[in-house]
Protein backbone atom coordinates (compact mmCIF):
# COMPACT_ATOMS: atom_id res chain seq x y z
CA UNK A 1 0.00 0.00 0.00
CA UNK A 2 1.17 3.55 -0.40
CA UNK A 3 3.20 5.02 2.41
CA UNK A 4 2.22 8.66 2.02
CA UNK A 5 -0.08 8.68 5.02
CA UNK A 6 1.63 6.06 7.11
CA UNK A 7 2.61 8.57 9.76
CA UNK A 8 -0.87 9.89 10.61
CA UNK A 9 -2.13 6.32 10.78
CA UNK A 10 0.62 5.28 13.15
CA UNK A 11 -0.11 8.33 15.27
CA UNK A 12 -3.78 7.50 15.41
CA UNK A 13 -3.03 3.93 16.43
CA UNK A 14 -0.61 5.17 19.08
CA UNK A 15 -3.20 7.61 20.41
CA UNK A 16 -5.77 4.84 20.65
CA UNK A 17 -3.34 2.48 22.38
CA UNK A 18 -2.69 5.27 24.89
CA UNK A 19 -6.43 5.69 25.38
CA UNK A 20 -6.67 1.95 26.08
CA UNK A 21 -3.76 1.87 28.47
CA UNK A 22 -4.27 5.01 30.57
CA UNK A 23 -7.33 3.86 32.58
CA UNK A 24 -5.63 0.48 33.06
CA UNK A 25 -2.45 2.15 34.22
CA UNK A 26 -4.45 4.23 36.67
CA UNK A 27 -6.01 1.13 38.20
CA UNK A 28 -2.59 -0.53 38.61
CA UNK A 29 -1.29 2.70 40.11
CA UNK A 30 -4.20 2.90 42.55
CA UNK A 31 -3.76 -0.74 43.57
CA UNK A 32 -0.21 -0.02 44.74
CA UNK A 33 -1.16 2.87 47.02
CA UNK A 34 -2.52 2.95 50.54
CA UNK A 35 -6.06 4.21 50.99
CA UNK A 36 -4.80 7.35 52.73
CA UNK A 37 -2.61 8.20 49.78
CA UNK A 38 -5.41 7.51 47.29
CA UNK A 39 -7.82 9.91 48.93
CA UNK A 40 -5.39 12.60 50.15
CA UNK A 41 -2.56 12.98 47.64
CA UNK A 42 -2.90 13.07 43.87
CA UNK A 43 0.14 11.52 42.24
CA UNK A 44 0.89 9.78 38.98
CA UNK A 45 2.86 7.06 40.72
CA UNK A 46 2.70 5.58 44.23
CA UNK A 47 4.74 7.67 46.68
CA UNK A 48 4.65 4.97 49.32
CA UNK A 49 4.56 1.79 47.29
CA UNK A 50 2.64 -0.94 49.10
CA UNK A 51 1.67 -4.52 48.38
CA UNK A 52 -0.75 -4.62 51.29
CA UNK A 53 -3.82 -4.49 49.01
CA UNK A 54 -2.67 -7.64 47.24
CA UNK A 55 -1.71 -9.17 50.56
CA UNK A 56 -5.30 -8.63 51.78
CA UNK A 57 -6.70 -10.46 48.79
CA UNK A 58 -4.36 -13.44 48.99
CA UNK A 59 -4.86 -13.97 52.71
CA UNK A 60 -8.57 -13.26 53.16
CA UNK A 61 -10.66 -16.30 52.12
CA UNK A 62 -13.69 -14.14 51.33
CA UNK A 63 -11.56 -12.53 48.60
CA UNK A 64 -9.51 -15.34 47.12
CA UNK A 65 -12.38 -17.83 47.18
CA UNK A 66 -14.06 -15.55 44.64
CA UNK A 67 -11.25 -16.19 42.16
CA UNK A 68 -11.36 -19.91 42.80
CA UNK A 69 -15.14 -19.98 42.31
CA UNK A 70 -14.94 -17.99 39.09
CA UNK A 71 -12.17 -20.16 37.68
CA UNK A 72 -13.98 -23.34 38.60
CA UNK A 73 -17.23 -22.50 36.85
CA UNK A 74 -15.41 -20.98 33.86
CA UNK A 75 -13.39 -24.18 33.45
CA UNK A 76 -16.49 -26.37 33.79
CA UNK A 77 -18.34 -24.23 31.30
CA UNK A 78 -15.49 -24.35 28.75
CA UNK A 79 -15.20 -28.15 28.96
CA UNK A 80 -18.97 -28.78 28.75
CA UNK A 81 -19.43 -26.31 25.91
CA UNK A 82 -16.65 -27.92 23.87
CA UNK A 83 -17.93 -31.45 24.54
CA UNK A 84 -21.43 -30.78 23.22
CA UNK A 85 -20.37 -28.33 20.51
CA UNK A 86 -17.74 -30.53 18.84
CA UNK A 87 -20.13 -33.21 17.52
CA UNK A 88 -22.77 -30.62 16.64
CA UNK A 89 -20.30 -28.52 14.67
CA UNK A 90 -19.18 -31.66 12.85
CA UNK A 91 -22.78 -32.48 12.00
CA UNK A 92 -23.47 -28.98 10.69
CA UNK A 93 -20.26 -28.83 8.67
CA UNK A 94 -20.59 -32.26 7.00
CA UNK A 95 -24.29 -32.92 6.45
CA UNK A 96 -27.54 -31.37 5.40
CA UNK A 97 -30.55 -32.58 7.33
CA UNK A 98 -34.11 -31.77 8.17
CA UNK A 99 -34.26 -28.38 9.91
CA UNK A 100 -30.52 -27.69 9.86
CA UNK A 101 -30.84 -24.00 8.93
CA UNK A 102 -33.58 -23.42 11.49
CA UNK A 103 -31.58 -25.11 14.17
CA UNK A 104 -28.58 -22.93 13.36
CA UNK A 105 -30.66 -19.76 13.46
CA UNK A 106 -32.30 -20.82 16.69
CA UNK A 107 -28.86 -21.20 18.25
CA UNK A 108 -28.11 -17.66 17.11
CA UNK A 109 -31.21 -16.28 18.82
CA UNK A 110 -29.90 -17.60 22.13
CA UNK A 111 -26.80 -15.53 21.63
CA UNK A 112 -29.03 -12.49 21.09
CA UNK A 113 -31.23 -12.86 24.14
CA UNK A 114 -30.42 -10.45 26.96
CA UNK A 115 -29.30 -12.46 30.00
CA UNK A 116 -31.66 -10.28 32.03
CA UNK A 117 -34.58 -11.98 30.26
CA UNK A 118 -33.48 -15.37 31.58
CA UNK A 119 -32.72 -14.12 35.05
CA UNK A 120 -36.12 -14.84 36.52
CA UNK A 121 -36.70 -18.32 35.05
CA UNK A 122 -33.13 -19.41 35.75
CA UNK A 123 -33.56 -18.38 39.33
CA UNK A 124 -36.73 -20.48 39.57
CA UNK A 125 -35.42 -23.39 37.51
CA UNK A 126 -32.20 -23.84 39.44
CA UNK A 127 -33.99 -23.43 42.76
CA UNK A 128 -36.41 -26.18 41.75
CA UNK A 129 -33.71 -28.66 40.76
CA UNK A 130 -31.64 -27.74 43.81
CA UNK A 131 -28.66 -26.32 41.98
CA UNK A 132 -28.75 -22.81 43.42
CA UNK A 133 -25.42 -21.52 44.66
CA UNK A 134 -23.41 -24.24 42.94
CA UNK A 135 -20.69 -23.85 40.34
CA UNK A 136 -22.62 -26.21 38.12
CA UNK A 137 -25.57 -23.81 37.95
CA UNK A 138 -23.43 -20.95 36.71
CA UNK A 139 -21.56 -23.20 34.27
CA UNK A 140 -24.86 -24.50 32.85
CA UNK A 141 -26.42 -21.05 32.59
CA UNK A 142 -23.38 -19.71 30.74
CA UNK A 143 -23.71 -22.52 28.24
CA UNK A 144 -26.76 -20.66 26.98
CA UNK A 145 -24.59 -18.17 25.14
CA UNK A 146 -21.32 -20.12 24.90
CA UNK A 147 -22.61 -23.26 23.18
CA UNK A 148 -24.04 -21.38 20.16
CA UNK A 149 -20.78 -19.47 19.95
CA UNK A 150 -18.69 -22.65 20.15
CA UNK A 151 -20.76 -24.36 17.45
CA UNK A 152 -20.33 -21.32 15.23
CA UNK A 153 -16.57 -21.05 15.52
CA UNK A 154 -15.93 -24.79 15.28
CA UNK A 155 -18.24 -25.13 12.28
CA UNK A 156 -16.19 -22.46 10.50
CA UNK A 157 -12.91 -24.20 11.19
CA UNK A 158 -14.28 -27.68 10.35
CA UNK A 159 -15.72 -26.51 7.03
CA UNK A 160 -12.20 -25.46 6.11
CA UNK A 161 -11.10 -29.13 6.26
CA UNK A 162 -11.87 -31.11 3.13
CA UNK A 163 -14.32 -33.98 3.65
CA UNK A 164 -11.99 -36.18 1.58
CA UNK A 165 -10.07 -36.67 4.82
CA UNK A 166 -13.16 -38.26 6.38
CA UNK A 167 -13.71 -40.53 3.40
CA UNK A 168 -10.08 -41.65 3.27
CA UNK A 169 -10.19 -42.49 6.95
CA UNK A 170 -13.31 -44.63 6.51
CA UNK A 171 -11.77 -46.49 3.57
CA UNK A 172 -8.71 -47.12 5.71
CA UNK A 173 -11.02 -48.73 8.25
CA UNK A 174 -10.90 -46.21 11.08
CA UNK A 175 -13.91 -46.25 13.38
CA UNK A 176 -15.65 -42.89 13.78
CA UNK A 177 -14.50 -42.11 17.35
CA UNK A 178 -10.96 -43.08 16.45
CA UNK A 179 -11.02 -40.93 13.33
CA UNK A 180 -12.58 -37.98 15.15
CA UNK A 181 -10.21 -37.96 18.10
CA UNK A 182 -6.96 -39.11 16.53
CA UNK A 183 -7.17 -37.57 13.06
CA UNK A 184 -9.81 -34.87 12.89
CA UNK A 185 -9.27 -33.04 16.19
CA UNK A 186 -5.54 -32.50 15.64
CA UNK A 187 -6.39 -30.89 12.28
CA UNK A 188 -8.59 -28.28 13.93
CA UNK A 189 -6.42 -27.71 17.02
CA UNK A 190 -6.33 -23.98 16.36
CA UNK A 191 -10.11 -23.87 16.11
CA UNK A 192 -10.53 -25.75 19.38
CA UNK A 193 -8.05 -23.39 21.02
CA UNK A 194 -9.85 -20.29 19.77
CA UNK A 195 -13.22 -21.72 20.82
CA UNK A 196 -11.96 -22.53 24.28
CA UNK A 197 -10.59 -19.01 24.48
CA UNK A 198 -13.92 -17.43 23.63
CA UNK A 199 -15.88 -19.69 25.98
CA UNK A 200 -13.41 -18.84 28.70
CA UNK A 201 -13.66 -15.15 27.96
CA UNK A 202 -17.42 -14.80 27.83
CA UNK A 203 -17.93 -16.86 30.94
CA UNK A 204 -15.18 -14.97 32.76
CA UNK A 205 -16.59 -11.52 32.02
CA UNK A 206 -20.27 -12.28 32.69
CA UNK A 207 -21.64 -11.10 36.00
CA UNK A 208 -25.42 -10.75 35.93
CA UNK A 209 -26.27 -14.48 35.83
CA UNK A 210 -23.31 -15.53 37.93
CA UNK A 211 -24.28 -13.06 40.62
CA UNK A 212 -27.95 -14.00 40.66
CA UNK A 213 -27.44 -17.77 40.78
CA UNK A 214 -24.97 -17.74 43.65
CA UNK A 215 -25.11 -16.51 47.22
CA UNK A 216 -22.27 -17.88 49.32
CA UNK A 217 -20.53 -21.05 48.18
CA UNK A 218 -20.00 -20.25 44.51
CA UNK A 219 -19.91 -16.46 44.63
CA UNK A 220 -17.80 -15.11 41.76
CA UNK A 221 -15.11 -12.49 42.22
CA UNK A 222 -17.20 -9.89 40.41
CA UNK A 223 -19.99 -10.14 42.95
CA UNK A 224 -17.54 -9.91 45.81
CA UNK A 225 -16.15 -6.73 44.29
CA UNK A 226 -19.56 -5.04 44.01
CA UNK A 227 -20.37 -6.02 47.56
CA UNK A 228 -17.19 -4.43 48.86
CA UNK A 229 -17.94 -1.20 47.05
CA UNK A 230 -21.29 -0.80 48.70
CA UNK A 231 -20.55 -2.20 52.15
CA UNK A 232 -17.27 -1.21 53.77
CA UNK A 233 -17.11 2.42 52.69
CA UNK A 234 -14.66 2.80 49.84
CA UNK A 235 -11.71 0.49 50.01
CA UNK A 236 -10.33 1.75 46.70
CA UNK A 237 -6.90 0.15 47.02
CA UNK A 238 -8.17 -3.39 47.52
CA UNK A 239 -10.83 -2.90 44.87
CA UNK A 240 -8.19 -1.82 42.34
CA UNK A 241 -5.92 -4.72 43.30
CA UNK A 242 -8.81 -7.17 42.85
CA UNK A 243 -9.47 -5.61 39.44
CA UNK A 244 -5.83 -5.98 38.39
CA UNK A 245 -5.87 -9.66 39.36
CA UNK A 246 -8.95 -10.32 37.19
CA UNK A 247 -6.98 -9.15 34.13
CA UNK A 248 -4.24 -11.74 34.44
CA UNK A 249 -6.03 -14.92 33.25
CA UNK A 250 -7.31 -13.18 30.12
CA UNK A 251 -3.91 -11.76 29.27
CA UNK A 252 -2.33 -15.18 29.73
CA UNK A 253 -4.70 -17.00 27.43
CA UNK A 254 -4.82 -14.39 24.69
CA UNK A 255 -1.09 -14.77 24.20
CA UNK A 256 -1.59 -18.39 23.15
CA UNK A 257 -4.24 -17.65 20.57
CA UNK A 258 -3.01 -14.25 19.36
CA UNK A 259 -2.43 -15.45 15.80
CA UNK A 260 -5.90 -16.94 15.45
CA UNK A 261 -8.00 -14.64 17.54
CA UNK A 262 -8.94 -12.22 14.77
CA UNK A 263 -10.10 -15.13 12.63
CA UNK A 264 -12.12 -16.48 15.53
CA UNK A 265 -13.82 -13.13 16.04
CA UNK A 266 -14.67 -12.93 12.35
CA UNK A 267 -16.11 -16.41 12.11
CA UNK A 268 -17.46 -17.03 15.51
CA UNK A 269 -19.51 -14.12 16.59
CA UNK A 270 -22.01 -13.95 13.77
Amino acid sequence: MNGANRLPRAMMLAAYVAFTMIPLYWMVNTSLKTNEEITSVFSLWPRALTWSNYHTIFTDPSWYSGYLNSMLYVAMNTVFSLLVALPAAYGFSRYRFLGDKHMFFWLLTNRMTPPAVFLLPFFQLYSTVGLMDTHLAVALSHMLFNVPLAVWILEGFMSGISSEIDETAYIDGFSFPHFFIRIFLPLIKAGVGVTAFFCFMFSWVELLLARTLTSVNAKPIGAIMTRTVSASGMDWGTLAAAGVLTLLPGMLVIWFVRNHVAKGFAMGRV
Partner: protein
Amino acid sequence: MSKPYNNKAWFFILPVFACVAFSAILPLMTVVNYSVQDIISPTKSVFVGLEWFRQTMRDSELHDALLRQVIFSLCVLLLQIPLGVALALAMPSKGWKSSAALVILSMPLLIPWNVVGTIWQIFGRADIGLGGHTLSALGVAYNYTASPIDAWLTVLLMDVWHWTPLVALLGFAGLRSIPDAYYQAAQIDGAGRWAVFRYIQLPKMRGVLTIAVLLRFMDSFMIYTEPFVVTGGGPGNSTTFLSQYLTQKAVGQFDLGPAAAFSLIYFLIILLFCFVLYSWMQSAGSGSKSAVETPP
Protein backbone atom coordinates in the same frame (compact mmCIF):
# COMPACT_ATOMS: atom_id res chain seq x y z
CA MET B 1 -19.11 -28.25 -2.43
CA SER B 2 -22.42 -29.95 -1.74
CA LYS B 3 -22.92 -31.77 1.50
CA PRO B 4 -24.73 -35.11 1.62
CA TYR B 5 -28.27 -35.15 2.96
CA ASN B 6 -28.49 -37.40 5.98
CA ASN B 7 -30.98 -37.09 8.80
CA LYS B 8 -28.85 -39.25 11.04
CA ALA B 9 -26.68 -36.16 11.48
CA TRP B 10 -29.28 -35.13 14.04
CA PHE B 11 -27.52 -37.48 16.45
CA PHE B 12 -24.54 -35.11 16.35
CA ILE B 13 -26.80 -32.19 17.17
CA LEU B 14 -28.70 -33.95 19.93
CA PRO B 15 -26.40 -33.03 22.85
CA VAL B 16 -26.48 -29.35 21.91
CA PHE B 17 -30.20 -29.51 21.40
CA ALA B 18 -30.74 -31.10 24.81
CA CYS B 19 -28.57 -28.64 26.66
CA VAL B 20 -29.91 -25.54 24.92
CA ALA B 21 -33.43 -26.82 25.39
CA PHE B 22 -32.78 -27.10 29.11
CA SER B 23 -31.34 -23.62 29.34
CA ALA B 24 -33.46 -21.81 26.74
CA ILE B 25 -36.80 -23.43 25.90
CA LEU B 26 -37.67 -24.37 29.46
CA PRO B 27 -36.90 -20.90 30.85
CA LEU B 28 -38.66 -19.19 27.94
CA MET B 29 -41.77 -21.27 28.54
CA THR B 30 -41.61 -20.31 32.22
CA VAL B 31 -41.49 -16.66 31.22
CA VAL B 32 -44.49 -17.09 28.93
CA ASN B 33 -46.30 -18.86 31.73
CA TYR B 34 -45.58 -16.12 34.26
CA SER B 35 -46.47 -13.37 31.85
CA VAL B 36 -50.15 -14.33 31.76
CA GLN B 37 -50.60 -15.04 35.47
CA ASP B 38 -50.78 -13.09 38.67
CA ILE B 39 -48.61 -15.02 41.08
CA ILE B 40 -49.88 -14.25 44.54
CA SER B 41 -47.98 -16.97 46.38
CA PRO B 42 -46.00 -20.03 45.22
CA THR B 43 -49.16 -22.12 45.39
CA LYS B 44 -51.75 -19.59 44.29
CA SER B 45 -51.92 -17.86 40.95
CA VAL B 46 -54.63 -16.36 38.79
CA PHE B 47 -54.82 -16.27 35.03
CA VAL B 48 -54.88 -12.63 33.95
CA GLY B 49 -54.49 -12.91 30.18
CA LEU B 50 -52.73 -10.00 28.57
CA GLU B 51 -53.11 -7.66 31.52
CA TRP B 52 -49.36 -7.53 32.28
CA PHE B 53 -48.57 -6.77 28.67
CA ARG B 54 -51.03 -3.87 28.67
CA GLN B 55 -49.61 -2.59 31.92
CA THR B 56 -46.04 -2.89 30.65
CA MET B 57 -46.88 -1.09 27.42
CA ARG B 58 -48.31 1.83 29.42
CA ASP B 59 -45.43 1.97 31.89
CA SER B 60 -43.94 5.44 31.41
CA GLU B 61 -40.69 4.52 33.20
CA LEU B 62 -40.26 1.73 30.70
CA HIS B 63 -40.82 4.17 27.82
CA ASP B 64 -38.10 6.41 29.22
CA ALA B 65 -35.72 3.49 29.67
CA LEU B 66 -36.43 2.31 26.13
CA LEU B 67 -35.82 5.80 24.70
CA ARG B 68 -32.54 6.10 26.61
CA GLN B 69 -31.58 2.64 25.40
CA VAL B 70 -32.22 3.44 21.74
CA ILE B 71 -30.30 6.72 21.93
CA PHE B 72 -27.44 4.98 23.71
CA SER B 73 -27.24 2.18 21.13
CA LEU B 74 -27.31 4.66 18.23
CA CYS B 75 -24.51 6.71 19.81
CA VAL B 76 -22.52 3.52 20.32
CA LEU B 77 -22.87 2.54 16.67
CA LEU B 78 -22.09 6.03 15.33
CA LEU B 79 -18.93 6.29 17.42
CA GLN B 80 -17.58 2.77 17.39
CA ILE B 81 -18.07 1.63 13.81
CA PRO B 82 -16.12 4.48 12.12
CA LEU B 83 -13.47 4.45 14.84
CA GLY B 84 -13.11 0.69 14.65
CA VAL B 85 -12.75 0.75 10.85
CA ALA B 86 -10.14 3.51 11.09
CA LEU B 87 -8.21 1.45 13.64
CA ALA B 88 -8.40 -1.67 11.49
CA LEU B 89 -6.93 0.29 8.58
CA ALA B 90 -4.19 1.70 10.79
CA MET B 91 -3.10 -1.63 12.25
CA PRO B 92 0.18 -3.08 10.96
CA SER B 93 -0.56 -6.13 8.84
CA LYS B 94 2.43 -8.35 9.60
CA GLY B 95 5.13 -9.15 12.10
CA TRP B 96 5.46 -8.64 15.82
CA LYS B 97 3.93 -5.17 15.64
CA SER B 98 0.74 -6.72 14.35
CA SER B 99 0.67 -9.28 17.19
CA ALA B 100 1.39 -6.61 19.76
CA ALA B 101 -1.35 -4.33 18.42
CA LEU B 102 -3.81 -7.26 18.45
CA VAL B 103 -3.00 -8.23 22.01
CA ILE B 104 -3.12 -4.66 23.34
CA LEU B 105 -6.36 -3.85 21.53
CA SER B 106 -8.01 -7.08 22.74
CA MET B 107 -7.23 -6.34 26.36
CA PRO B 108 -10.39 -4.38 27.20
CA LEU B 109 -12.47 -7.24 25.77
CA LEU B 110 -11.03 -9.69 28.29
CA ILE B 111 -11.75 -7.64 31.36
CA PRO B 112 -14.77 -8.73 33.41
CA TRP B 113 -17.53 -6.25 32.78
CA ASN B 114 -17.82 -5.17 36.38
CA VAL B 115 -14.08 -4.49 36.45
CA VAL B 116 -14.51 -2.31 33.35
CA GLY B 117 -16.95 -0.36 35.48
CA THR B 118 -14.52 -0.29 38.39
CA ILE B 119 -11.69 0.94 36.18
CA TRP B 120 -13.76 3.87 34.95
CA GLN B 121 -15.11 4.55 38.39
CA ILE B 122 -11.58 4.89 39.73
CA PHE B 123 -10.48 6.80 36.63
CA GLY B 124 -13.40 9.23 36.46
CA ARG B 125 -13.82 10.37 40.04
CA ALA B 126 -12.76 13.97 40.54
CA ASP B 127 -11.14 13.25 43.91
CA ILE B 128 -9.07 10.16 43.15
CA GLY B 129 -9.23 9.59 39.38
CA LEU B 130 -6.77 10.71 36.75
CA GLY B 131 -9.49 11.59 34.24
CA GLY B 132 -11.76 13.38 36.69
CA HIS B 133 -8.88 15.15 38.37
CA THR B 134 -7.42 16.37 35.08
CA LEU B 135 -10.78 17.73 33.97
CA SER B 136 -11.25 19.53 37.28
CA ALA B 137 -7.75 20.98 37.04
CA LEU B 138 -8.67 22.28 33.57
CA GLY B 139 -11.65 24.04 35.10
CA VAL B 140 -14.36 21.70 33.83
CA ALA B 141 -17.01 21.05 36.46
CA TYR B 142 -17.12 17.31 35.88
CA ASN B 143 -18.92 14.98 38.26
CA TYR B 144 -20.53 11.83 36.93
CA THR B 145 -22.38 11.08 40.15
CA ALA B 146 -24.29 14.37 40.08
CA SER B 147 -24.64 15.51 36.48
CA PRO B 148 -26.69 13.33 34.08
CA ILE B 149 -24.73 14.63 31.09
CA ASP B 150 -21.40 13.75 32.67
CA ALA B 151 -22.75 10.33 33.63
CA TRP B 152 -23.85 9.76 30.04
CA LEU B 153 -20.51 10.84 28.61
CA THR B 154 -18.69 8.59 31.07
CA VAL B 155 -20.79 5.55 30.20
CA LEU B 156 -20.44 6.25 26.46
CA LEU B 157 -16.70 6.76 26.66
CA MET B 158 -16.41 3.60 28.72
CA ASP B 159 -18.32 1.65 26.11
CA VAL B 160 -16.12 3.05 23.33
CA TRP B 161 -13.07 2.02 25.34
CA HIS B 162 -14.52 -1.40 26.02
CA TRP B 163 -15.97 -2.43 22.66
CA THR B 164 -14.33 -0.50 19.81
CA PRO B 165 -11.53 -3.11 19.77
CA LEU B 166 -14.11 -5.72 18.75
CA VAL B 167 -15.03 -3.69 15.66
CA ALA B 168 -11.34 -3.14 14.95
CA LEU B 169 -10.54 -6.87 15.24
CA LEU B 170 -13.42 -7.80 12.96
CA GLY B 171 -12.40 -5.16 10.41
CA PHE B 172 -8.80 -6.33 10.64
CA ALA B 173 -9.83 -9.93 9.92
CA GLY B 174 -11.83 -8.68 6.92
CA LEU B 175 -8.93 -6.66 5.54
CA ARG B 176 -6.54 -9.62 5.85
CA SER B 177 -8.76 -11.65 3.53
CA ILE B 178 -8.16 -9.24 0.60
CA PRO B 179 -5.60 -10.71 -1.83
CA ASP B 180 -2.58 -8.52 -2.63
CA ALA B 181 -3.48 -8.73 -6.31
CA TYR B 182 -6.36 -6.33 -5.68
CA TYR B 183 -4.01 -3.66 -4.36
CA GLN B 184 -1.58 -4.21 -7.24
CA ALA B 185 -4.40 -3.82 -9.73
CA ALA B 186 -5.51 -0.63 -7.99
CA GLN B 187 -1.95 0.72 -8.15
CA ILE B 188 -1.74 0.03 -11.88
CA ASP B 189 -5.03 1.86 -12.35
CA GLY B 190 -3.62 4.77 -10.36
CA ALA B 191 -6.29 4.59 -7.70
CA GLY B 192 -5.84 6.93 -4.75
CA ARG B 193 -6.09 6.04 -1.10
CA TRP B 194 -9.75 6.96 -0.93
CA ALA B 195 -10.65 4.99 -4.06
CA VAL B 196 -8.88 1.91 -2.67
CA PHE B 197 -10.87 2.26 0.53
CA ARG B 198 -14.18 2.98 -1.18
CA TYR B 199 -14.04 0.36 -3.94
CA ILE B 200 -11.86 -2.41 -2.52
CA GLN B 201 -11.59 -2.35 1.24
CA LEU B 202 -15.08 -1.22 2.20
CA PRO B 203 -16.94 -3.73 -0.01
CA LYS B 204 -14.64 -6.51 1.17
CA MET B 205 -15.32 -5.62 4.77
CA ARG B 206 -19.07 -5.62 4.30
CA GLY B 207 -19.54 -9.12 5.72
CA VAL B 208 -17.58 -8.53 8.88
CA LEU B 209 -19.00 -5.04 9.31
CA THR B 210 -22.52 -6.46 9.18
CA ILE B 211 -21.51 -8.73 12.01
CA ALA B 212 -19.90 -5.85 13.88
CA VAL B 213 -22.99 -3.63 13.59
CA LEU B 214 -25.27 -6.46 14.70
CA LEU B 215 -23.07 -7.43 17.61
CA ARG B 216 -22.54 -3.92 18.83
CA PHE B 217 -26.22 -3.19 18.55
CA MET B 218 -27.26 -6.34 20.40
CA ASP B 219 -24.66 -6.08 23.11
CA SER B 220 -25.21 -2.37 23.72
CA PHE B 221 -28.93 -3.04 23.88
CA MET B 222 -28.32 -5.60 26.65
CA ILE B 223 -25.81 -3.48 28.59
CA TYR B 224 -26.16 -3.99 32.30
CA THR B 225 -23.04 -4.47 34.37
CA GLU B 226 -20.88 -1.49 33.41
CA PRO B 227 -23.37 1.34 34.09
CA PHE B 228 -24.60 -0.60 37.11
CA VAL B 229 -21.12 -0.44 38.64
CA VAL B 230 -20.22 3.09 37.57
CA THR B 231 -23.42 5.05 38.03
CA GLY B 232 -25.89 2.56 39.49
CA GLY B 233 -28.37 3.85 36.91
CA GLY B 234 -28.22 7.39 38.24
CA PRO B 235 -28.13 10.23 38.84
CA GLY B 236 -31.89 9.83 39.09
CA ASN B 237 -32.76 7.37 36.37
CA SER B 238 -30.60 9.02 33.73
CA THR B 239 -28.45 5.96 32.97
CA THR B 240 -30.98 3.23 33.79
CA PHE B 241 -31.16 1.13 30.65
CA LEU B 242 -33.57 -1.68 29.86
CA SER B 243 -31.68 -4.58 31.44
CA GLN B 244 -31.23 -2.72 34.66
CA TYR B 245 -34.86 -1.70 34.82
CA LEU B 246 -35.88 -5.29 34.18
CA THR B 247 -33.52 -6.62 36.85
CA GLN B 248 -34.91 -4.12 39.34
CA LYS B 249 -38.40 -5.36 38.61
CA ALA B 250 -37.60 -9.08 38.51
CA VAL B 251 -35.16 -9.52 41.37
CA GLY B 252 -35.53 -6.31 43.35
CA GLN B 253 -39.30 -6.08 43.57
CA PHE B 254 -40.02 -9.68 42.54
CA ASP B 255 -42.94 -8.65 40.31
CA LEU B 256 -42.95 -11.95 38.44
CA GLY B 257 -45.84 -11.32 36.06
CA PRO B 258 -44.94 -7.82 34.83
CA ALA B 259 -41.25 -8.73 34.71
CA ALA B 260 -42.02 -11.76 32.55
CA ALA B 261 -44.16 -9.70 30.17
CA PHE B 262 -41.36 -7.15 30.02
CA SER B 263 -38.81 -9.90 29.27
CA LEU B 264 -40.83 -11.15 26.32
CA ILE B 265 -41.30 -7.66 24.89
CA TYR B 266 -37.59 -6.96 25.33
CA PHE B 267 -36.67 -10.18 23.54
CA LEU B 268 -39.01 -9.40 20.64
CA ILE B 269 -37.66 -5.85 20.30
CA ILE B 270 -34.12 -7.21 19.97
CA LEU B 271 -35.15 -9.81 17.40
CA LEU B 272 -37.02 -7.19 15.38
CA PHE B 273 -34.20 -4.64 15.41
CA CYS B 274 -31.62 -7.24 14.42
CA PHE B 275 -33.77 -8.50 11.58
CA VAL B 276 -34.29 -4.96 10.24
CA LEU B 277 -30.63 -4.04 10.60
CA TYR B 278 -29.52 -7.26 8.96
CA SER B 279 -31.86 -6.89 5.97
CA TRP B 280 -30.90 -3.25 5.58
CA MET B 281 -27.18 -3.94 5.58
CA GLN B 282 -27.63 -6.79 3.13
CA SER B 283 -29.58 -4.65 0.65
CA ALA B 284 -27.37 -1.56 1.13
CA GLY B 285 -24.31 -3.50 0.09
CA SER B 286 -25.89 -5.58 -2.67
CA GLY B 287 -24.31 -5.27 -6.09
CA SER B 288 -20.84 -5.56 -4.60
CA LYS B 289 -20.24 -9.19 -3.92
CA SER B 290 -18.80 -10.00 -0.54
CA ALA B 291 -15.64 -12.04 -0.62
CA VAL B 292 -15.46 -12.48 3.11
CA GLU B 293 -17.12 -15.82 3.50
CA THR B 294 -19.04 -16.15 6.71
CA PRO B 295 -20.67 -19.40 7.71
CA PRO B 296 -24.32 -19.64 6.58
